[in-house]
């Protein structure tokens, strides 16, 4: 196995690798990528910078452009939040701003904007929302933010490899839950947390969302996805802060949490896994809504 010294298949192996080489998770993920796909480091880093810039653009344009959403079940909530916070202050500080940005990205996605799936389109708001708010509040540079994305990618890779990142297979816990775990770990590394602290934060973030179903209204990536992305943001930052504060004290290690998430996902009924046959999607209030109607209300 030529890549043995850089490859890992779960969190335990990743942690051992990081501790043996005394490197952060982001560095382990970069080294794995370079070795596994025979790429050079500069190319891999440049590609991630491009992805970061797509994320930045999706936040920026969701705040400045007038968007026409395909379904119209949602629209304008992110700007409403920003305006409200401008007048009244943000109760949650960076969390509130990150949540508002994340909601904007989901609106941008629903208006056929360009996004980076992270790990999916339906959960694509969490990482950019947090990165944009962190950049604004703490002035991290490109290098730090690119590293943060490699860290998040390592967490997503472990979940995707050993469980699932698909709402159709595992419910929303596999999409927003995974994004939240990725973001929690990423934030820990940005603030100097060790690999063990990052993994504890990621595990806690998923633990908090275990069992979350996927029940998209009208079958579209709009509602409840948008606000669940906001929730994924707050859960990530809180999980990161707890892990940083406690040195990553937690009872169940990340790999075991991932297994639980997978098993829980498999036991979620089919109707509650992206099929729009249950949950909020079939409530009396939304049952007769047609896409587009939600926004204009003329047919009510």
């Amino acid at each position, binding site marked *: 196995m030529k890549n043995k010294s850089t490859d890992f298949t779960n969190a335990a192996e990743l942690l051992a690798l990081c501790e043996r080489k005394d490197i952060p998770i982001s560095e382990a993920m970069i080294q794995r990528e370079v070795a596994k796909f025979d790429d050079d480091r500069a190319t*891999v880093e440049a590609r991630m910078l491009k992805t970061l810039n797509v994320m930045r653009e999706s936040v920026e344009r969701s705040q400045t452009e007038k968007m026409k959403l395909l379904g119209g079940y949602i629209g304008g909530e992110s700007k409403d939040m920003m305006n409200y916070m401008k007048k009244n202050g943000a109760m949650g500080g960076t969390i509130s701003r990150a949540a508002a940005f994340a909601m904007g990205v989901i609106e941008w996605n629903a208006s056929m904007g*360009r996004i980076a799936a992270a790990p999916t*389109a339906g959960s694509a708001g969490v990482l950019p929302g947090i990165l944009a708010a962190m950049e604004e509040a703490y002035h991290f540079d490109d290098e730090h933010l690119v590293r943060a994305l490699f860290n998040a*990618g390592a967490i997503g890779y472990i979940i995707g490899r050993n469980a699932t990142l*698909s709402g159709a297979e595992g419910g929303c816990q596999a999409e927003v839950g995974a994004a939240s775990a990725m973001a929690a770990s990423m934030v820990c590394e940005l603030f100097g947390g060790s690999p063990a602290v990052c993994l504890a934060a990621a595990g806690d973030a998923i633990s908090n969302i275990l069992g979350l179903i996927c029940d998209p209204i009208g079958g*579209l990536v709009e509602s409840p996805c948008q606000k669940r992305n906001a929730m994924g943001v707050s859960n990530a930052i809180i999980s990161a802060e707890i892990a940083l504060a406690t040195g990553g004290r937690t009872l169940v290690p990340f790999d075991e949490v991932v297994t639980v998430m997978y098993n829980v996902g498999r036991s979620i009924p089919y109707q509650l896994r992206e099929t729009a046959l249950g949950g909020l999607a079939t409530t009396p209030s939304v049952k007769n809504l047609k896409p587009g109607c939600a926004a204009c209300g003329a047919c009510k």
Partner: protein
Amino acid sequence: MRELSVFDIIGPIMIGPSSSHTAGALKIARIARKLAKSRIISVRFQLYGSFATTYKGHGTDRALVGGILGYATDDYRIRDSFDWAQKAGIDVVFEEMENEIDAHPNTVDITVTEEDGTVSSIRGASVGGGEIEITRINGCDIRYSGKNNAVIVQQYDKPGVIASIAKIFEVFNVNISNMSVFCEEKDEAAFSILEIDGDFNELGMEALCRQPNILSAMYIKVK
């Protein structure tokens, strides 16, 4: 199992809103486009399952038309693909179909008519995360993921045909990573799908078409 890259997790970069209903749909149509040898003048899209019920809300229709125009999954022209198709002189028609037994929930049949009158068709399914599978070409049930460059050969199922196909690839120094033959039982013609490492060229395709018992060959370049 294919190894996951960090860019499978943080990415792909795509026009929203859905990897399966938008990006995946576009990829199927892009393969339909590659079946055409002359200018495309009209395309019929028949939508099944979740494609049929949610295509407008997912921009599936615009993504499919964008694929016919050869756009990448992150091309902003997808938003106005109907206008671009009109400018290119391509008529498009959409039909919502009753679900067919055995078809994957996100399935589309694409029928392409070229200016020389040639009609070809494919069936594709968007199987999740932007991954696709082509399951039918010109009425023949096949399997092709669209991940590797492929040469699709239509041939009479006669002794020596497969060997003569393989010979051409050897002469042009192209490695066949996977080869499958479909519809052998039919009298008319069988289909061979040869997934290759690297690229194939015009000369190779011409040489292939000159072989006895080979009716046609199409090159599908996806990377």
